[in-house]
């Protein structure tokens, strides 16, 4: 489902933006337009669709207009032209009146800022409940939600501290908690981890992914750091220095099929095998068995699909192990009622593993391995061949 749809969005800074449009038509560069008209074209014809529950990363170098873009969404900056449609009611944010806009900002959006933006005169708890206070929530509700959210970001015990007593990483946890406390549909994160030390940044990225697994918010995440973008984003939009979206796609799309030279030079220093997730090469299993099956049925099932083995899962589709055709034949010969006793333990790869995590496992096990999620639910299988194909730079177009 589409949560947010941005269409034909232009942002032009200056006293007379209309002057710039004819020049934009002619495809002039930002610099030329500024020289001729004095107007600065920050964003040019942006079209994006952001799906519900995804982390959508907007990536660009400084001056690409990415911070402007995120501010257009909650209208901290009012765009010159275009449409931003919200959710299923298809509200155009750009047409919202003053009161509607305040209501939208209160209910729909939570924003996290690059330099945290915490209010220095308020305690951590008072900072976290700021949004609720603005909405006029009751004291009990504010306290309850505030404490709950502080706990969720791992800061329990710090409620009554002042911001100056906390480190950078902790401050941004507070920033995140403040945004989450209003239970927004959409989280806008403007380079939230850029001001943090590298180690803490990695920490916070993992923290965000952890929180996201539980909360499943729609997140629009701005960054200039490609490593961060590929780590967090399922889908990424790349803005070039002219404020144009040059490519929107999954991490793998962008790494394997860069849309133009700009993207290519951008991604060339990225280690594919450290970035591309095993998900990308995971294939569906042709056949899956249950432990209660009787051996001869299982053999038939395998033969039908011309398989020599199969993974076995329980009723929740969680991986139990694997079983080969030979094992099944043996079980059948021994007259076992079910195949349960023949299941062999096998290694598995978690779906968040990167190719470089998975490759050694695949090589040493000399066979395909099952791919599971964090709850050991079987998602498919991965093979060494497929990994090598991606690393060689071929797409997976077969």
């Amino acid at each position, binding site marked *: 489902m589409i949560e947010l749809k941005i269409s034909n969005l232009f942002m032009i800074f200056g006293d007379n933006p209309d002057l710039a449009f004819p020049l934009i038509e002619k495809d002039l560069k930002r610099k030329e337009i500024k020289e001729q008209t004095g107007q600065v074209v920050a964003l040019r014809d942006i079209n994006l669709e952001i799906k519900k529950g995804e982390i959508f990363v907007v990536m660009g170098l400084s001056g690409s207009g990415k911070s402007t873009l995120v*501010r257009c969404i*909650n209208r*901290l900056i009012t765009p010159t032209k275009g449409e931003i449609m919200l959710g299923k009611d298809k509200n155009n944010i750009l047409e919202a009146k003053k009161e509607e806009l*305040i*209501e*939208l*900002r*209160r*209910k729909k*959006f*939570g*924003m996290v*800022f*690059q*330099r945290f*933006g915490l*209010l*220095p*005169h308020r305690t951590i708890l008072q900072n976290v409940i*700021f*949004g609720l*206070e*603005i*909405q006029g929530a009751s004291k009990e509700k504010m306290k309850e939600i505030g404490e709950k959210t502080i706990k969720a970001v791992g800061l329990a015990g710090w409620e009554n501290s*002042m911001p*100056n007593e906390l480190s950078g990483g902790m401050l941004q946890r507070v920033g995140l908690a403040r945004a989450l406390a*209003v239970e927004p549909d959409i989280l*806008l994160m403007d380079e939230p981890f850029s001001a943090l030390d590298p180690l803490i940044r990695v920490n916070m990225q993992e923290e965000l992914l952890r929180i996201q697994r539980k909360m499943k918010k729609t997140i629009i995440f701005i960054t200039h750091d490609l490593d961060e973008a590929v780590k967090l984003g399922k889908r990424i939009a790349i803005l070039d220095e002219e404020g144009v979206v040059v490519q929107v796609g999954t991490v793998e799309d962008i790494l394997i099929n860069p849309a133009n030279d700009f993207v290519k030079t951008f991604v060339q220093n990225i280690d594919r095998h450290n970035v591309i997730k095993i998900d990308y090469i995971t294939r569906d299993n042709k056949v899956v068995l249950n432990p209660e099956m009787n051996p001869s049925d299982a053999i038939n099932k395998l033969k039908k699909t011309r398989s020599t083995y199969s993974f076995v899962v329980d009723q929740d589709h969680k991986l139990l192990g694997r079983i080969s055709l030979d094992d099944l034949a043996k079980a059948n010969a021994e007259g076992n009622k079910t195949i349960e006793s023949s299941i062999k333990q096998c290694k598995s790869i978690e779906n968040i593993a990167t190719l470089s995590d998975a490759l050694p496992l695949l090589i040493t096990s000399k066979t395909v391995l099952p791919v599971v999620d964090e709850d050991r639910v079987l998602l498919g299988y991965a093979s060494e061949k497929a990994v090598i194909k991606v690393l060689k730079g071929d797409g997976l177009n077969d």
Partner: protein
Amino acid sequence: MIDIIPKIPVGRFLVDIINFLRTNLAIVFAAIRSIIATAVETVNSILTTLPEFVIIAIVALIAWKTAKIKVAIFSVVSLLLIISMGLWRPTVETVSLVLVATLIATIIGIPLGILKARSKTFASIIEPILDVMQTLPSLSYLIPAVLFFRIGIVPGVVATVIFAMPPSIRLTSLGLEQVSKEMIEVGKSFGATSKQLLLKIEVPLALPSIMMGINQTIMLAFSMVVIAGFIGAGGLGEIIIAGLQRYNLVIAIEAGLSVVFLAIILDRITKRLGQIYDVKKS
């Protein structure tokens, strides 16, 4: 050459305006007069009803809590000295005058400062007025005050209010202008109305600067209150001026010292209030 420039009756014209105001706005001036007189009398009577030692203890406690123990000790010693010089009564009068004048100056000045930060038009109007107010010699404030309120405590307070107000306006406005863009964005992004933005973000963040403005206003009020002694505003100012006129240096110096003591005590306390706040936020 000079002869061809006609004489424009500037002075006459202004006096006419003043007379017009005096006759037509008499009720307004009477109201202002009674409000100020009541306020000063109330503060004065509270301060005179309380025993000296109670007041000294309260001042010392406030100084100790807000500033340092050193300031508290200084307050006790200097206030005792004032009693021993026999200047307690006029000191209390002066303090009443300063407190009332500061209160009025900040009640008017802070909102004007907020307005100045908010509106470019208002800023461009008030900026030159503030410049004039801050360059005019303090004595010249007495003249309009006397014209409208005759002599005594009320014109003294009025002149003091006007003289002491500019820092409240300027520093309030400066503090608000220095609130970072990001903080404003924080407020807006959570859906704050402009009133909420002002009360929950801008004013709290500007508070150290506003406190500094109040501190400066108090200091200016002290200097003006002495000069207001010329128009019979009472207190230490009148004693200093009487001392100078009669060439009684002893009494003038003692009263002058008392003013200095008061100024130092109030300066330290109000300055620390601003700093305490600053430390908490940085």
